[in-house]
């Protein structure tokens, strides 16, 4: 497959690993402690595990899996709202497959479906709109979920609904934005990060400029990265080169997809339909100012939060759950007290154990190897 296979080439990966090792040798910090690089995006977390990249990287690099999985950071109260919506008579609740198993305080969407709620998985918000067209007697609610990558598609779908005069369609908006969250993490006192892999697909929408503050104000290198193994490895090498050179800039590894200026059509639609919320609740991270969006007043009739009455409760995360610390990179998944015991992919306590981009699930599924086999003696508990 074009633009896929070329970027999985093992030979080129070896060159990059060589380069990474060479850079490490030139970085003084590495003699004292591992460098902490945060991949903001869950897509990178997924790629790291899928291709076994962590098992290839030198010990001196520690990857911190950031908050960039919209499923993992979904607060329990919002899942409850989804269930409440889905269980209303006459509603067809449409969602991407990802959040189906995220636990709410009473049940997940998968459980609600098993108990009779009409919940349908869709591939695109346009599929949800199509259902609304096909079932004019029903209320079709689309579970809007995702960062800036996904928001424009929801926006265009709302605009399309308006154009067609479809009135039985609405969005339960849980869209969030990544920049305020990165800022919150950088402001967190218990945080020591040396650099960032920037989210490639968010960036194709927002462009590279919004990351400027990371370099300028916090003096951390940022490299916008693609999702194939060579992309990730090259981005790591680029971050290291900045560190080695004492630079802190925003660089773009993913030029084939990410234009510096982002996607103007998408951003226009986004800001036409959505406006920033004063704050939004994140699982594990608490409330973050300006980190969510909602539909503008003009599109109120497409807003499920205005159209239906929702429980809208703030549900505290389970006491034992340490997702927040893991999300901020303070704890590694395996250091969470309930990892692998009370919290497993079958009975997840926290959202990080649910999504295939969730760090805990990824560690549990792909990562247990190093704990059990002596094949890689250099792997320590805290780095796999």
């Amino acid at each position, binding site marked *: 497959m074009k633009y896929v296979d070329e970027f999985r080439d093992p030979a080129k990966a070896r060159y990059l690993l060589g380069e990474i090792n060479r850079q490490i040798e030139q970085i003084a910090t590495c003699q004292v402690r591992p460098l902490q690089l945060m991949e903001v995006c869950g897509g990178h977390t997924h790629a790291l595990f*899928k291709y*076994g990249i962590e098992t290839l990287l030198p010990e001196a690099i520690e990857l911190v899996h950031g908050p960039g999985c919209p499923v993992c950071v979904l607060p329990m109260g919002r899942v409850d709202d989804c269930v409440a919506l889905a269980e209303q008579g006459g509603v067809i609740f449409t969602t991407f497959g990802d959040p189906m198993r995220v636990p709410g305080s009473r049940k997940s969407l998968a459980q609600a479906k098993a108990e009779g709620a009409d919940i*349908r*998985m869709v591939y695109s918000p346009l599929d949800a709109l199509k259902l609304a067209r096909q079932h004019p007697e029903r209320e079709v609610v689309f579970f809007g979920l995702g960062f800036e990558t996904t928001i424009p598609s929801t926006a265009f779908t709302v605009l399309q609904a308006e154009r067609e005069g479809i009135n039985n369609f609405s969005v339960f908006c849980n869209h969030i934005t990544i920049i305020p969250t990165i800022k919150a993490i950088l402001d967190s006192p218990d945080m020591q990060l040396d650099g960032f892999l920037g989210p490639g697909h968010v960036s194709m929408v927002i462009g590279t400029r919004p990351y400027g503050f990371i370099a300028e104000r916090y003096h951390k290198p940022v490299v916008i990265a693609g999702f194939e193994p060579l992309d990730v490895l090259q981005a790591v090498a680029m971050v290291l080169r900045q560190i080695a050179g004492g630079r802190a800039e925003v660089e773009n590894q993913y030029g084939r997809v990410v234009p510096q200026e982002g996607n103007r059509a998408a951003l226009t639609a986004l800001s036409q339909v959505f406006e920033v919320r004063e704050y939004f609740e994140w699982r594990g991270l608490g409330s973050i100012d300006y980190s969510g969006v909602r539909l503008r007043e003009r599109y109120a009739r497409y807003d499920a939060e205005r159209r239906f009455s929702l429980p809208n409760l703030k549900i505290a995360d389970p006491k034992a759950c340490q997702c927040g610390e893991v999300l901020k990179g303070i704890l590694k998944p395996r250091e969470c007290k309930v990892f692998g015991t009370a919290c497993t992919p079958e009975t997840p306590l926290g959202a990080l154990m649910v999504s295939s981009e969730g760090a805990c699930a990824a560690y549990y599924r792909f*990562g247990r*190897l190093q704990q059990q086999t002596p094949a890689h003696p250099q792997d320590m508990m805290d780095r796999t």
Partner: protein
Amino acid sequence: MNSHQGSRHITLAHGGGGKAMRDLIETLFVRHFHNPWLTPLEDQARIGLGELSPGGNRLAFTTDSFVVDPLFFPGGDIGTLAVNGTVNDLAMSGAQPLYLSCGMILEEGLSITLLEEVVESMGRAADAAGVSIVTGDIKVVPRGAVDKLFINTTGLGVIPEGVHIASHRAQPGDAILVNGFMGDHGAAIVDARGDLALDNPVESDCQPLHGLVAAMLAACPDIHCLRDATRGGVATVLNEFVQAAQVGMRLEEASLPVRETVRGVCEILGLDPLYLANEGKLVAIVPAEAAEAVLAAMRSHPAGREGAIIGEVTAVPEGRVVLATALGGERIVDMLVGEQLPRIC
């Protein structure tokens, strides 16, 4: 089918045990399944033990229900699936599949034309696999109590003496083989209902495997493990093996046979071909020294043309399947938790 004049649909009467059912059995099932065991229409088929013993010293006995939706899909239908699925479960013990039962549950209102297509397709699949459908049952349930049509087939076969295939027999050093492209069936039906609006050229790999198994046994009578990689795919079978045998496994990503189009489906929907269902693929664990001979036997059989050695059994990590990625990294291939859901993130 004189008695269904004016009614091209199944009614509750067809399951009532009376005349309508009798007619349906005689005009449809006996016609397409015709064989000397079925025709007396007793409550049970009778099979001389003498007919069985020349083939081996043990019976293999297996059951599966088939609930695929849609009933017809690229590369097959519920009828071919129902025959081949059970034939394959028999074959995985090394048995020669011989006799099948057929239990059908029909929805009131089902088109009789459609039913006949399925029955005909079962008859053809049984002929092709050399098995006889010797006993059956029909139930009709009220509209809404079943989605169109479910089939159970239960199979009997005879296992040749000296063949001892069992999941606990995997031993460190053994080679792991598959007989061709993974995930065709799963990719073919993932959107056969059209909800995801894919235009998908993949066809199901539905086929009987006992001929292939016989060829493999001829090359190596001491095959350690065999299992058809249906629901849950190759990953699930391998996990069952490592747990039963208390061994580990190491797969080579680069050697996994996956069709380009199946990769396409997986990329679009965020799925992993290792977990996709197959209906004509088996996983075999064979002693290392026999691996090449078995592979050659596989590849010279029509059902194994794209066969491959995909990895080896290891001592550690016990109970774990490890994938060596093309890149040189490693990851665990775990049991599937929950269903595989289409992903967007």
